[in-house]
């Protein structure tokens, strides 16, 4: 299986066992660098796909929680290279497919070619790049695809129909449906169902909804109209508060 297929597959597997796929997000090396791998492992044991946030100095699409975690992680010395090294050294046993969420500049600075190779080696199956719209993504996409890695496209409630088709078919692994026209950290909108139905209807790939998912109700609501639920700020806040991520994540998808 190609890395991007592992993503699609993991989500479909969850669905076929009657569950909404759960895609937890953590900022790498936050709150502490020492606990990164152990937390990742704990989260990967519950989640179907795990999103790892590469911290960036200018997280312009993120709310307060992820901004804070991002700045602190940088201060802790976290970098893309550090994350890859950690995965190389300690992550071989993690079988849950991983996705990197990163703003573009750290990827550019790393160099696309080397990035694709190192990512593939580290078990990274996809990239989410919130400041890289489709029009600018060709070079990165091609380079990643050469390693079988997905460049996951985001769609939003304001995305017009043709563009929705374009983005869902250009995506890899899954489609990231932003639930709100806003930054991370807010709540869920009321017309969510319609929107997710619209996306799912045109998407050849499973659709995971993100932004504003915090509680079991959110996951179950999302699950009725999408394949998966991405949980970001809420999980980061649990980690900040010293809570147990696995317990929290399990509470989101009660049996």
């Amino acid at each position, binding site marked *: 299986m190609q890395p991007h297929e592992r993503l699609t597959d993991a989500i479909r597997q969850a669905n076929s066992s009657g569950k909404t796929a759960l895609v937890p997000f953590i900022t790498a090396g936050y709150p502490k660098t020492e606990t990164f791998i152990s937390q990742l492992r704990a989260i990967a044991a519950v989640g179907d796909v795990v999103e790892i946030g590469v911290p960036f*100095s200018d997280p*312009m699409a993120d709310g307060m929680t992820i901004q804070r975690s991002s700045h602190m992680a940088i201060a802790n010395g976290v970098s893309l290279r550090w994350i890859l090294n950690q995965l190389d050294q300690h992550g071989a046993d993690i079988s849950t497919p991983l996705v990197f969420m990163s703003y573009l500049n750290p990827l550019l600075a790393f160099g696309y070619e080397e990035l694709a190779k190192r990512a593939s080696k580290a078990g990274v199956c996809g990239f989410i790049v919130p400041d890289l719209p489709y029009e600018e993504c060709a070079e990165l996409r091609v380079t990643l695809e050469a390693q079988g890695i997905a460049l996951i496209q985001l769609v939003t409630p304001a995305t017009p129909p043709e563009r929705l088709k374009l983005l869902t078919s250009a995506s890899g692994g899954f489609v990231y449906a932003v639930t709100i*026209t806003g930054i991370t950290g807010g709540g869920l909108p009321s017309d969510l169902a319609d929107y997710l139905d619209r996306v799912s209807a045109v998407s050849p790939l499973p659709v995971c909804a993100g932004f504003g998912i915090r509680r079991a109700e959110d996951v179950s609501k999302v699950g009725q109209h999408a394949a998966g639920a991405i949980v970001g700020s809420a999980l980061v806040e649990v980690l900040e508060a010293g809570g147990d991520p696995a317990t929290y994540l399990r509470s989101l998808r009660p049996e």
Partner: protein
Amino acid sequence: MKSVLPAMDKEALLAADIAGELPDARGRFGPFGGRYIPETLVPAFDRLEQGARKFLPDPEFQASFQRELREWVGRPTALSFAPRLSKKWGAEVWIKREDLAHTGAHKINNAIGQALLAVKLGARRVIAETGAGQHGVASAAACARVGLPCRVYMGAIDMERQAPNVDRMLRLGAEVIPVKTGDQTLRAAIDEAMREWVSDPEGTYYLLGSAVGPHPYPWLVRELQAVIGQEAREQMMRQAGGLPDVAFACVGGGSNAIGLFYPLLGDAGIELIGVEAGGTGDGLGQNAATLATGTPGVLQGCYTMILQDDDGQVQETHSVSAGLDYSGVGPEHAMLQAVGRVSYVTATDDEALDALEEVCAEEGILTALETAHAYAAARRWAKANPGKRILIGNSGRGDKDMPTLSKFPPKGRK
């Protein structure tokens, strides 16, 4: 993207820029520029770009823009001969007086142009970021003029060092939001304004203040600021009897510089020099000399020269002048540097402060701290190139800098 640099044809790129063909359809100046934005903003940017492309050339829009420039902003701004500086420097020094524009800097040209555009695009409210506060004041004034509510994001550090401008924004009816995240200066303010926009892309117009950010801003701002260079060129011909040998402008994001330089690009005989903030030294974090010391990367929606570390993390900057204290720069400047048409130099905090004092004492013009960097570099150049005709873009007045200047009492020159 990096790979595009070596391949580009410098002469062809410059010719295309002069011919008005840049940015290209993808918003690029050669390799630089583009539009790196969250998907949420794509429809808003599409609307903005279509609107700008439709209205900027529209005769009716142009007529109302030109009328506002003339009747409200007070254009054309004067071109002043500087007799005493000329004598001291052994040069013929001319000054393009954007400090005389309404609200005290070139920023108003862009602000009123975009405010008119916001009305055309049916915006319900305007948001803006500001560094030195000049763009915030200009936006507040322009929004009042066109009747739109205005909210300004400003770094907490900048609010302190440019306090007079905060008061002015409030008086002009704007809401000022202190930004306490990130570096608490201009860059953080732009991030925060972007976030606000993402949360309401429909009804909000984001009035960006410099020739930076995602396409179409660098182009839009250049078009609205080019009046500086157009006027200066014509005034030099008429008042000085000919074009200058060299033109200087300070470069923060680069809007006053591109406004002055763009209409002069085709005059091959004019040397063009952009002046960045040299801060307290050459080390990363000690200055804001993006073009002089930076590397290419993507910051705040645009591929350009930025100040970053090896991991691509954008670095904090230092400049005594809030308006130059920015880790990025407009993509057109990055291209003009790459093709060799414009050179970019630096002036340190101390040089700028000294130049500010000199311009006060010799010509009775209290220039902005940003602008003072241009004078400092021009003076250095004049000493090395005696007898030349020099044009300096006097981008703004220094009233707003009083709180900062109070920490640097005049040294006394006589």
